[in-house]
């Protein structure tokens, strides 16, 4: 049986993992390679690296990071952030990433999803959707630029479109829940899961290990992603998996 995946997300800026990774016992808490090895050993099923570099140099450095991580990590990993063109995808995949994640660029030019899927295969094209509930719309609206800009797109319709265009997976972040630490957005995850035929990764809102079982049991997500809860050691991947196993959710 296919297991549910737990995915730690690392923010990388100019080649360094940032945003308060507080690990004892690591020589260098900002080193992407050391951290990926750590999470691999803890039982992470996959990793996501989000490049938040603002400069061209920072982006170039990311390629070196990808290469180095690919050289040590024996689990799949996705790279997102600032991918605007087929060339960017090629560079990252060639450096050894398994998947690329598209967000703002896909909204700006949806053809990019199709081009990427045709060229590299759907299995390595993830589309990240940042969603926020909109009362007037009676549904969720798609946001871009790290959640700063709203768009006219409705989330379920956009999710359907990205899959039709060849996305192999959806990374769905609830902006309503993100940072709130009160649990994943089950309604959003279920709503999107119902309209697409590809795996959905739920993201945003994990504040405790107890928040993981419901996202699999109630909204049937395929994977759950979290950042700070793991970085700050509020719980660990191993603890989350133990909890899931106890509650009958099949994990590795």
């Amino acid at each position: 049986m296919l297991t549910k995946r737990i995915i730690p997300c690392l923010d990388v800026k100019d080649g360094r993992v940032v945003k308060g990774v507080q690990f004892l016992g690591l020589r260098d808490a900002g080193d992407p390679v050391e951290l990926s090895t750590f999470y691999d050993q803890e039982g992470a099923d996959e990793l996501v690296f989000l490049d938040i570099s603002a400069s061209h140099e920072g982006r170039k450095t990311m390629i070196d990071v990808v290469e180095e991580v690919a050289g040590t990590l024996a689990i799949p990993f996705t790279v997102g952030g600032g991918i605007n063109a087929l060339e960017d995808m090629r560079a990252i995949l060639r450096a050894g990433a398994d998947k690329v994640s598209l967000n703002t660029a896909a909204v700006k030019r949806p053809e990019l999803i199709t081009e990427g899927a045709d060229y590299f295969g759907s299995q390595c094209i993830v589309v990240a959707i940042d969603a926020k509930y909109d009362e007037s719309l009676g549904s969720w609206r798609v946001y871009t630029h790290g959640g700063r800009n709203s768009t006219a797109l409705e989330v379920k319709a956009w999710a359907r479109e990205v899959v039709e265009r060849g996305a192999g997976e959806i990374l769905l972040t609830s902006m309503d829940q993100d940072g709130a630490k009160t649990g994943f957005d089950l309604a959003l995850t279920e709503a999107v899961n119902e309209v697409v035929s590809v795996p959905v990764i739920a993201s945003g809102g994990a504040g405790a290990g107890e928040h993981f079982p419901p996202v699999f049991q109630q909204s049937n997500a395929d994977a759950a992603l979290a950042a700070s809860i793991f970085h700050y050691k509020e719980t660990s991947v191993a603890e989350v998996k133990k909890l899931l196993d106890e509650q009958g959710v099949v994990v590795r």
Partner: protein
Amino acid sequence: MIGIIDYGMGNLHSVSKAMERLGLSYFISPYVEELKEADGLILPGVGSFKDAMNILEADGLAPFIREWSQADRPLLGICLGMQLLFEESEENGTTQGLNLLPGRVRRFRGVTEAGEAYKVPHMGWNLLTFWQPEHTLLQNTAPGHVYFVHSFVVEVKSRDILIATCTYDVEVPAVVGQNATMGTQFHPEKSSQLGMAMLENFGNFVAQEVKARG
């Protein structure tokens, strides 16, 4: 020395990095003349069966791989590379494969017999059942989870070639093999310790064959 066949359709980087981690010597080449000098071959692959076969035929790699396998020399296909070892695929019409193992490749139906929809691709970690635990690739391993990403699945014509399987609606051939030709549907280089152990076993098998050949 293991030769990794570069025909433009594989994530060669992840396979070659895995070789480095295991301390196995390898080279990457698109040329028959160079690959011929290898002691064992790896056929990686991601993407479409039809495109892959077209390239392998056009570059003269297909007849070379067939001869290699028929001469009983070590060959490991990974993911699409494993599917290519079979007779044919239904992807984009029917495409002939390398025809080294009995079976055909078809798409996951996406709907169970009971009419329930399930997701395609089969993506993620799935648990292996070992049918031939004594097989070369499974030496010193125990059944565990490995990482799959694929939309097409092999229907074998003989259970004799099933070394390990998993279940995703249907029985998924996960490790297959006959003589020195073998393949994994999952990505061993992305399957943590268990996958790395299988790659290491292939490396050991190649080394033994070198010794046996003198």
